[in-house]
């Protein structure tokens, strides 16, 4: 057994619902169009464009900077090799004598300090060094790993045009420092410890008996913590070679982590935690401990001693992930060496990346913007639907109310169809009413006439005089009866005719007169 309930809605609600359906349909069409055109993932596309453009901008600067530094380091090596060989020759010695004559070392280094300072200054690097393959005291334990030299640090290479650059001696003779008023670095030592020092071992071993251009022999070390210091840096080492091909040390320039950080600050207007990283890359693995970073976000705390796996991500971007964290970004191989270089098989990458959660948040944020715009549009549409439906239905309600009050009123709604309807209703209403009214009046009057016939002649005489609007006293005078008798007759008349007053009596008389029945 089923019950069917007829739900009735007002015209206004029907109209409102109609508008809502229209708005929702339009919105759906809009969303479908956005999906179809790919605009719904605007955040992701925008991120990709931003990362690639920013990478390209930074890449230009980093390349220029490192190319310049490599060239300057080679220049320093050329001039030092030439100078040292020349000075030794003047004494009747050659570079192989340095090892045997430690007394020469301080003089050689003292003579070359100026060149080191010139190259440090003009290369805008954070440090310049000479490491001679010799020690001043070979009687000390581990003296084979101790090498004499000079390492001058510029603690603020990022400051351009400083009249008082902050220069410190990190390695070298204190006498040279005192004489030249160069303060000693807090972690100063007299000599270099070259135990496990690729920046010394690789260029010297690969250049053994090398002849010709040393521009193919410079070597960039990955980022490292310089032994027995807190200095995190990359070093560009070039062998010192005399005209006979004898390698007697290295010299070079460095890039400290601070210099890199302050020189290559990526644009953080879109992503505050954007990181730039220069790093060796092998088999799609980046070892972050060997990288230099820049960016406002402290990559060092979250990435230090980590390996990042590089995989292809969305669009042209890559994903860099470790066990703890994941990043989205872009990298290109970075060219440190010319094709003919001894170290040209080493691969480096300049990477620009952003924590994955930040990219996700950005995309969500951008899509939420779209959602808010749609929601706002929806809310506006609902309000508009409400107002429009009210406004639209208002003349109809008004017309209905007017008609209720006065069925004969000629109401106009200015809505053609409704006005036609009202006109039609108006034309039918009076007929019905007249018919109804005449039917009921004739019944009442017939009843009255029937009752009238039940009056006695004396009562009828009194009735007739009342019908002529005489008052009770006048009726008594006319009929020469006492007023009490008239009152008795009146009482009987009212009872027989089912009326309560003279006015009612007169109303019936009037109606009878109108119908011609009296």
């Amino acid at each position: 057994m089923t019950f069917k309930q007829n739900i009735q809605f007002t015209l206004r609600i029907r109209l409102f619902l109609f508008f809502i359906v229209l708005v929702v349909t339009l919105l759906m069409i809009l969303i479908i169009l956005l999906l179809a055109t790919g605009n719904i993932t605007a955040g992701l596309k925008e991120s990709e464009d931003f990362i690639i453009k920013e990478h390209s901008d930074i890449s230009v600067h980093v390349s220029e900077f490192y190319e310049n530094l490599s060239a300057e380091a080679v220049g320093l090596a050329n001039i030092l090799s030439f100078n040292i060989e020349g000075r030794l020759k003047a004494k009747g010695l050659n570079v192989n004598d340095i090892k045997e004559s430690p007394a020469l070392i301080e003089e050689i280094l003292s003579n070359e300090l100026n060149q080191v300072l010139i190259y440090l200054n003009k290369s805008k690097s954070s440090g310049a060094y000479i490491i001679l393959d010799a020690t001043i005291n070979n009687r000390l334990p581990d003296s084979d790993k101790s090498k004499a030299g000079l390492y001058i640090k510029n603690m603020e290479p990022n400051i351009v045009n400083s009249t008082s650059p902050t220069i410190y001696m990190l390695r070298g003779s204190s006498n040279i420092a005192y004489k030249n008023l160069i303060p000693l670095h807090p972690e100063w030592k007299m000599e270099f410890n070259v135990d496990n020092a690729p920046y010394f071992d690789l260029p010297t071993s690969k250049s053994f008996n090398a002849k010709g251009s040393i521009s193919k022999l410079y070597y960039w070390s990955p980022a490292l913590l310089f032994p027995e210091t807190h200095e995190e840096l990359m070093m560009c080492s070039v062998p010192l070679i005399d005209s006979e091909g004898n390698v007697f040390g290295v010299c070079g320039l460095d890039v400290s982590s601070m210099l890199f950080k302050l020189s290559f600050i990526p644009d953080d207007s879109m992503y505050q935690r954007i990181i730039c990283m220069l790093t060796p890359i092998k088999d799609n693995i980046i070892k972050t401990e060997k990288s230099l970073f820049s960016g406002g976000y402290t990559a060092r705390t979250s990435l230090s001693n980590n390996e990042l796996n590089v995989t292809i991500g969305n669009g042209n971007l890559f994903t860099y992930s470790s066990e703890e964290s994941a990043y989205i970004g872009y990298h290109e191989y970075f060219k440190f060496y010319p094709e003919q270089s001894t170290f040209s098989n080493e691969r480096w990458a300049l990477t620009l990346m952003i924590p994955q959660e930040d990219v996700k948040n950005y995309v969500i944020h951008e899509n939420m913007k779209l959602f808010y715009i749609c929601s706002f549009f929806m809310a506006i549409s609902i309000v508009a639907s409400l107002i429009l439906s009210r406004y639209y239905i208002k003349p109809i309600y008004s017309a209905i109310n007017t008609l209720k009050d006065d069925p004969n009123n000629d109401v106009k709604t200015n809505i053609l169809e409704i006005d036609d309807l009202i006109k039609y209703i108006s034309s039918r209403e009076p007929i019905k009413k007249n018919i109804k009214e005449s039917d009921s009046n004739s019944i009442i009057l017939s009843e009255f006439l029937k009752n009238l016939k039940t009056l006695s002649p004396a009562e009828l005489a009194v009735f007739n005089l009342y019908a002529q609007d005489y008052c009770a006293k006048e009726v008594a005078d006319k009929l020469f009866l006492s007023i009490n008798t008239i009152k008795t007759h009146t009482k009987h008349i009212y009872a027989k005719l089912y009326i309560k007053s003279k006015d009612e009596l007169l109303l019936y008389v009037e109606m009878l007169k109108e119908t011609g029945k009296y």
Partner: protein
Amino acid sequence: MKNTMDVLIDEFNDTVGKEKGIIVNVTSISSSATLQEKLIMAANDEPNAPELPDITTLYPNTALMLADKGLLTDIENLFTEEELSRYINRFVEEGRLLNDELFVFPTAKSTEVIFLNMTIYNKFIKDTDASYDDLETFEGIIKTAEKYYKWTDSQTPDIKNDGKAFITYDSVFNVAQTGFQQLADSFIINEELNLNSPSFNRVWNLFYEPAVKGYVANYNGYGSDLMKTGNVVASIGSTAGILFYSPIVTYEDNLTEAVEYLILPYPTFEDGNKVAIQRGGGIGIIKSNKAKENAAGEFLKWFTSPEQNLKFVSSTGYLPVTIDAFNSVMNDESIAKDDNIKKLINTAREMQEQYDFYVPPAFEGFEELQDLYEKEIKETVSLSREEYFKLMEIMDEANAYENVSNGIYDNFINNMR
């Protein structure tokens, strides 16, 4: 300090900054001298000057110049009275400039102490009648320095006059300023040196004679450099120099020796009051907009909160700036593991209780006055010393000194006028 600052800023960005939507971007890291130079250039709108940052470390003299141009925010507006009361009052007061507005918020405060290479000193006192008590007064130090010179000279009997200096002053100017204060006098009056005061002769004698004779090193760099190579045994310098005192002394032949330091309170004149200098800078906030100024205030509150402050103290040698940090400093783990910092803070606390602190005046031209004094007195000593050594070849020590020092003091006073 640069790494400490950088690491702390990174930590702020990763924690509180991330929470509150504040990122502190480091735009420049440099020595105080370069920084002041750049700030002055920026404030004067000089060509090629860097843009003024939102927040910077600075010294009162630079702050005064920036405040004069209306470029600094009154930091007091960013702190409640209760918050400010947590800081050591005299540090806060030092940052009030112009109309008592707080333009330099204390972060890197220091005083001066004696750094002593205890390992070498112990060997020395074993052979002589020198003692640790001698190091309490300037007079005692000069006497000890003479003894040390003679003791080292006697190590190589075949070489005459090759004794070693005992001590060096990082700033002869600060020794003079503090010495005057100890004698209840002022080294600088109306932005000029008080050359007519008898106190001037007292502070002159702390340097000229012992430096000419080689007891005190006349060196243009920091004493810590000479201590690294064992060229001096003691140095009077800023507490902030502690990290430059290497636990290893490297001699000329690259032989090394592990050494231990003792950090002693600032010496006083025998008849003087216990006064030491209070130095150092702080952080200033450049006027920008409310949001940035408030963000800078948030960073300052975090950076100077006891926990961060102690990290900064343990890796720089600056003094704690909050009362809580000063009181809890010895219980702090990072402090406890560094022996030198522990000794330093102990001495600073002792001085905090027993000493009055002198804050050098802040005025334009202060740095120039300091540089001029240092340069003149060191050059004078250098020339005298050269002559003194020459004369020693033909006369005894006393006569040689008498000859070189004759009229030098008056000449110096006249030159400085």
